[in-house]
């Protein structure tokens, strides 16, 4: 079965799957700058959804609202049935363990080794991972899944950009999240490393059966990983469809993006 057929089948299955993340009429402004103007989306279980848009279109603001790093002005964000805008801090922290977030700049803790970076979220949630042996196993498993077990005792400063991104991905995986949010996963990387990261994202999705929301303006990344794409223009959904639908669109804005 070709990749296109696989995607079509995945989209058919979407309707039968449950919604794991839903955004309704999300609005966010910074002073007079209206960044999000009523954005909507649904992410289904096991789906890879890509959000594309130009710089400043509100992609990063939207993803930060999702994890409570920014407070939306209005609208609703439901993750696994829980409303983010009204949830208390304690419940939000518990919910955050179900969401992995890969930051654009990797955001590894500079003062900690790779091992300590990966252990950090585990130590914060000791009740889930009481056993120290279990912790070692989880760190090893996460590093093996990104192919960097040999870097376990290195400091972030000793790693290349691509290695940092992979370690950050391992840290994202360590709590076995149900949803992974990727903020520009390939930005600042050379084409070869970008391809490696994209492949890694696909293999992780296969292995861990996660739902992924990927923010990118890398068309290659969108082509390879997406089952569905939403194009965000001026803080609102402009168009939605599969890669092949959007890449053959006659709309000038869409064409400009996929050129």
């Amino acid at each position, binding site marked *: 079965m070709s990749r296109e057929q696989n995607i079509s089948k995945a989209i058919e299955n979407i309707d039968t799957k449950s919604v794991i993340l839903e955004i309704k009429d999300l609005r966010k402004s910074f002073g007079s700058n209206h960044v999000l103007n009523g954005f909507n989306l649904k992410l289904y279980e096991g789906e890879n959804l890509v959000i594309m848009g130009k710089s400043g279109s509100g992609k990063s603001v939207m993803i*930060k609202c999702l*994890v*409570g*790093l920014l407070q939306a002005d209005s609208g609703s964000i439901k993750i696994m049935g829980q409303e983010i805008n009204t949830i208390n801090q304690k419940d939000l*922290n*518990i919910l*955050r*363990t179900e*969401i992995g*977030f890969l*930051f*654009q*700049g990797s*955001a*590894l*803790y*500079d*003062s900690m080794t790779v091992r300590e970076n990966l252990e*950090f*979220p585990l130590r*914060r*949630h000791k009740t889930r991972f009481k056993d120290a042996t279990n912790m070692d196993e989880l760190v090893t498993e996460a590093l093996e899944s990104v192919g960097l077990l040999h870097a376990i005792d290195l400091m972030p400063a000793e790693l290349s950009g691509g290695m940092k991104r992979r370690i950050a991905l391992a840290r994202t995986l360590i*709590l076995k999240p149900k949803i992974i949010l990727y903020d520009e996963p390939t930005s600042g990387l050379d084409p070869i490393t970008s391809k490696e990261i994209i492949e890694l994202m696909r293999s992780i999705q296969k292995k861990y059966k996660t739902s992924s929301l990927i923010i990118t303006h890398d068309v290659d990344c969108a082509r390879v990983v997406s089952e569905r794409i939403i194009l965000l223009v001026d803080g609102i959904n402009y168009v939605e469809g599969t890669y092949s639908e959007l890449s053959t669109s006659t709309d000038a804005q869409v064409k400009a993006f996929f050129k």
Partner: protein
Amino acid sequence: MSGSNGFKSFFIEIGELTLFAKRFFKELFSRPFEGKELLRQCYNIGNRSILLVAVTGFIIGLVITLQTRPTLEGFGAESWMPSMVSLSIIREIGPVIIALTFAGRIASGIGAELGSMRVTEQIDAMEVSGTNPFKFLVVTRIVAATLMLPLLVLLGDAIALSGSYLIENVKGEVSFVLYFNKVFKVLEFSDLIPATIKTFFFGFAIALVGCFKGYHCEKGTVGVGAAANSAVVFSSMLLFVIDFVAVFVTDIFFEL
């Protein structure tokens, strides 16, 4: 116009700093307690400053004694040297100068460290992993600095008195026992205790300002530099205000 804006932004910053301090006290007594990280910060902050404090203290002792000796000699009062030097070092010069060097070292360090963590999204990453970054990064650093500075000041005072003794021994052939007998004869707990208590406030203020500037750092790497710089300037200024209040209060209770 720009003057009034500067004035306004200064008071806004004071208000924000007060809210930051309020949040610190709220988080300080709530669980979970970051004991391990607190010990690590105590070691980092204390250990990183020992050499600086030792050198500063030694030079303070040397310089004060060298500068004051000719004047006292003019009155034939050089035997008062240990009393005068010890009182000025223990009561005022030791705590203030050591706190100022500590501010230069620690406030800028904390400001730059937290600032770079902010601009590289490390603080956001902590928050997203379900950790309270304020508790882990800010509370531990402020408590560590509050506990470590008094110890460092006591150490610096002792080294300053040793430096002063060295000059007295070389210039006036005063023995170690005689020198320190005179020092301890004049010193009272009413000299040492208020001076030590105020160093807790100095340590608190230095780390509070460093953390505040770093935690709210903006505008990329330029912002990190600005956070480190303004942390030192603001905390140094705050030290003098605290010192004035401390001396004022001490005067009321101990009649200096």
